[in-house]
């Protein structure tokens, strides 16, 4: 009877941890798919798209997560296949300097102009 109880508890615990890890993987999968651009219906993420391409990418991402690949490695795999454009959140590198730094420069320039105007008025 005791053995039966213990095995029941172990079974329940393993089921609980298994569902927890599935939940974690599902969250990671959604996060990654929302950050990947669909190349067929451009403007939609793979998460939102129903295209053939998107369904294949969903399978690939699922497979890679189950293989234990980290989020960054999955992005790297997709970048190698399709280029940086496939990721909504591009990395800071030579090709994306303008993209990342221009808003900051414009902000600083605008701030400097405003600061100068205010100090001149005073």
């Amino acid at each position, binding site marked *: 009877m005791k053995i039966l109880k213990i095995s029941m508890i172990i079974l329940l615990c393993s089921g609980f941890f298994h569902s927890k890890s599935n939940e974690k993987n599902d969250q990671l999968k959604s996060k990654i798919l929302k950050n990947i651009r669909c190349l067929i219906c451009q403007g939609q993420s793979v998460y939102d798209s129903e295209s*053939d391409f998107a369904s294949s990418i969903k399978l*690939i991402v699922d497979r890679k997560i189950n293989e234990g690949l980290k989020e960054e490695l999955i992005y790297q795999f997709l970048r190698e296949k399709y280029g940086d454009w496939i990721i909504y959140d591009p990395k800071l590198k030579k090709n994306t300097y303008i993209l990342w730094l221009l808003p900051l420069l414009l902000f600083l320039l605008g701030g400097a102009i405003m600061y100068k105007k205010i100090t001149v008025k005073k």
Partner: protein
Amino acid sequence: MKSKFSLLVIIIFLSFCFVIFYKGINDSNIYSPKITDKKDIPNFEAKDFDSSKYVNSEKIFKDDIFYIVNIWASWCVPCRNEHPLLMRLSNSQLVKLIGVNYKDNLNKAENFINEFGNPYSQIIIDNDGTLSVEFGAYGVPETFVIDKNKKIIRKFIGPINNDILEEIKLIIK
């Protein structure tokens, strides 16, 4: 002096905006991945169309020869248009054609091959499209040229035409 400087800044800023927007108007707003980057062929295992046995990429690309990987499907209309060109290419001894049958009904794919001819030395099945993703494809048809070092050296998105056929012939010479 001060107003001249402000005017200069405004002119530079407007010119910059003009260049960006002008470039944006002229560029295609449909992105397609780069087609000239050299990449290694993926390692994979796929079902053979004829034998239904699993084969791995090392066995498929074992010869010291150029390979053409063509992703096709019986339901794909542009694939029908490019098929006669693939048949012509298959006559060359310098290259082997590998077909990747993409998300297809196998009976229909077989009928397609029986009707239009078989240019492929081997056909592998890609039921769920994941093999095509491993190659970096995002639709059908797509064609990849693989050199003797087993690198993907060229990729053609869409059906091949006479010009592309000539380009492929030049590459494999």
